[in-house]
């Protein structure tokens, strides 16, 4: 194993040129940069004008400004590899189904990548805008919080939770990572408070590894709030993605095996003994920051059970799930950013979570946009344009 003198990547000892950067493995001082066409000429061995319909035509200039020596191929006993029968057949078929190229859009204009990033001065101004947007609630004190109209999903969520019967436990799927905790914790807490009001047992489960500890944190918050231990239990981590969900739908015990928390859960939640699978839960409440995970719950669980499927997700994933909410497959869809406001306002801990901050965020983004659009351009920029 030898390292390429140019890119420091590993190559086999017998390699004559680096398979990573294409340069010779012999440590030679870098030659002066060749012009793109020369480079293409060198590499290809002959000068070939780029075909006119080639969308990458004219992009040679964007190829690395390093000299690429003629690529010496390792000598093959049988010369160049001959295409086998199947390859030939495939090639013919490919030709047959490919239509003549329509006039393609011009290649990505070089200026897009050649354009320098915003100067440091500008970047820092933009950063200050963002930081100001985060800190603004310290001053404004959440003026807007009470004024924003709740999302339609919030009422639906409250109704669904109110309709629950104490006999059947509710499955709470904590499927988000710490990166979404700031957005989703408040909404989850709000839902848990409503669950407690309905005196329904909550069974926690995570199909994402990060969710397990977040579920534990939610449980400890319940403990702090004085919820009796019998009111909730934790099943731990359910692996297998869609297959795991499909299995857990009919048999939780098969899906979870004898996971550390599953045994204890059986004792903590007598109701679990009646529910052999997720399908027999009173309702399924999924809290996730990932539209795909939510879609998996809808497709694998929601479609197979009469239990209402309630989803709390991030603002970023909400649009992905809108059709499922519209079709009624998801009884209630709440996005965390605004959905958690009311719950957060009841949390005694101080926080910057406020609708004011969202307005400030918009102002910051709009400011950046307007500045970019109308800001004075220096001479070099004007020349580029």
């Amino acid at each position, binding site marked *: 194993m030898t390292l390429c003198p140019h890119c420091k990547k590993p190559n086999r000892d017998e390699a004559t040129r680096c398979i990573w950067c294409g340069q010779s493995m012999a440590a030679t001082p870098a030659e002066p940069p060749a012009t793109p066409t020369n480079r293409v000429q060198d590499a290809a061995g002959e000068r070939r004008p780029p075909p006119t319909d080639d969308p990458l035509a004219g992009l040679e200039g964007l190829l690395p400004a390093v000299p690429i020596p003629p690529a010496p191929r390792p000598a093959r006993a049988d010369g160049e590899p001959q295409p086998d029968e199947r390859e030939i057949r495939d090639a013919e078929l490919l030709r047959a189904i490919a239509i003549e190229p329509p006039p393609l859009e011009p290649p990505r204009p070089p200026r897009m990548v050649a354009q320098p990033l915003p100067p440091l001065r500008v970047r820092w101004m933009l950063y200050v805008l963002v930081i100001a947007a*985060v800190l603004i609630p310290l001053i404004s004190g959440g003026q807007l919080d009470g004024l924003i109209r709740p999302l339609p999903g919030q009422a639906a969520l409250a109704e669904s939770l109110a309709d629950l019967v104490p006999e059947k436990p509710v499955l709470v799927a904590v499927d988000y990572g710490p990166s979404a905790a700031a957005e989703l914790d408040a909404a989850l807490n709000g839902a848990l408070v409503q669950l407690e009001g309905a005196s329904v047992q909550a069974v926690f489960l995570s199909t994402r590894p990060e969710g397990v500890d977040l579920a534990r944190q939610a449980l400890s918050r319940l403990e702090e709030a004085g919820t009796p231990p019998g009111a909730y239990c934790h099943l731990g981590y359910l692996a297998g993605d869609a297959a795991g969900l499909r299995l857990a739908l009919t048999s939780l015990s098969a899906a979870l095996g004898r996971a550390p928390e599953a045994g204890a859960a059986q004792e903590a939640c007598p109701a679990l003994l009646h529910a052999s699978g997720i399908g027999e839960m009173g309702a399924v409440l999924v809290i996730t920051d990932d539209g795909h995970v939510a879609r998996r719950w809808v497709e694998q669980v929601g479609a197979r059970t009469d239990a209402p499927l309630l989803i709390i997700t991030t603002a970023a994933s909400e649009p992905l799930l809108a059709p499922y909410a519209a079709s009624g497959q998801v009884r209630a869809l709440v996005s965390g950013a605004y959905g958690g406001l009311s719950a957060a306002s009841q949390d005694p801990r101080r926080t910057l979570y406020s609708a004011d901050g969202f307005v400030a965020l918009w102002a910051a983004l709009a400011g950046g946009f307007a500045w970019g659009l109308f800001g004075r351009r220096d001479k070099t920029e004007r020349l580029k344009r």
Partner: protein
Amino acid sequence: MNVVLPEGSLAQTLGLWVAALLTLGVLSYLVGDNPVFRLTQYLFVGVSAGYAAALAWTYVLAPRLAELIRDPGSAWPQAIALALGALMLTRAWKPLSPLARLPLALLLGVGAAVAIGGALRGTLVPQVAASMVSVAPVDYGGGLRGWAYALDAATLLAATIAVLAAYQYHAADRTGPAPLRRVASLLGKGGRAIITIVMAALLAGAALSFYSALRGQFDFLLFGLLGGRGL
């Protein structure tokens, strides 16, 4: 970040300060790429991979292994599963690597089946059913309100079909009679415009989510740490 370890314990205090330093380490990216930021990147990848692997072992493999040892007779499915899992690991050793094809084949076979079943029963049928709306104002109570709802329904329908049309694989300029081709390409254009609206909505949502994550870390620095909980 929610902190609920024993209040005031040394572990918690230490942890809070480590967390704060890591937070600042990642934010140091704002002054440009630097070794501290790079360190946090590698640390994060290592911790997250280790965490997921540990959970996979603790919650999936260890319990089944224990079950197998406890009662080999009745735990034969677990035995097969673990044996196949072992075969999967042979991928690492070239001479045996073909053996890894068996578990992969099973995994992909089951994965495909579950995906097809889910897509059919969970998306295709319900979403098609949801698109079967009436566009008659009278069905929405008539009057201006009825007309408004009917218009909504019609818009929803047209937009859905337009987006569907945008994905046609038959080359629109080759197949079918001319008027049909024109309709198809027109629908396709409309569909792409609507996809732009969806992207814009996703962008707005993403902005809120990014902001919330940042706000959470500032909460932690301002109130979780300096608020006295860590001191």
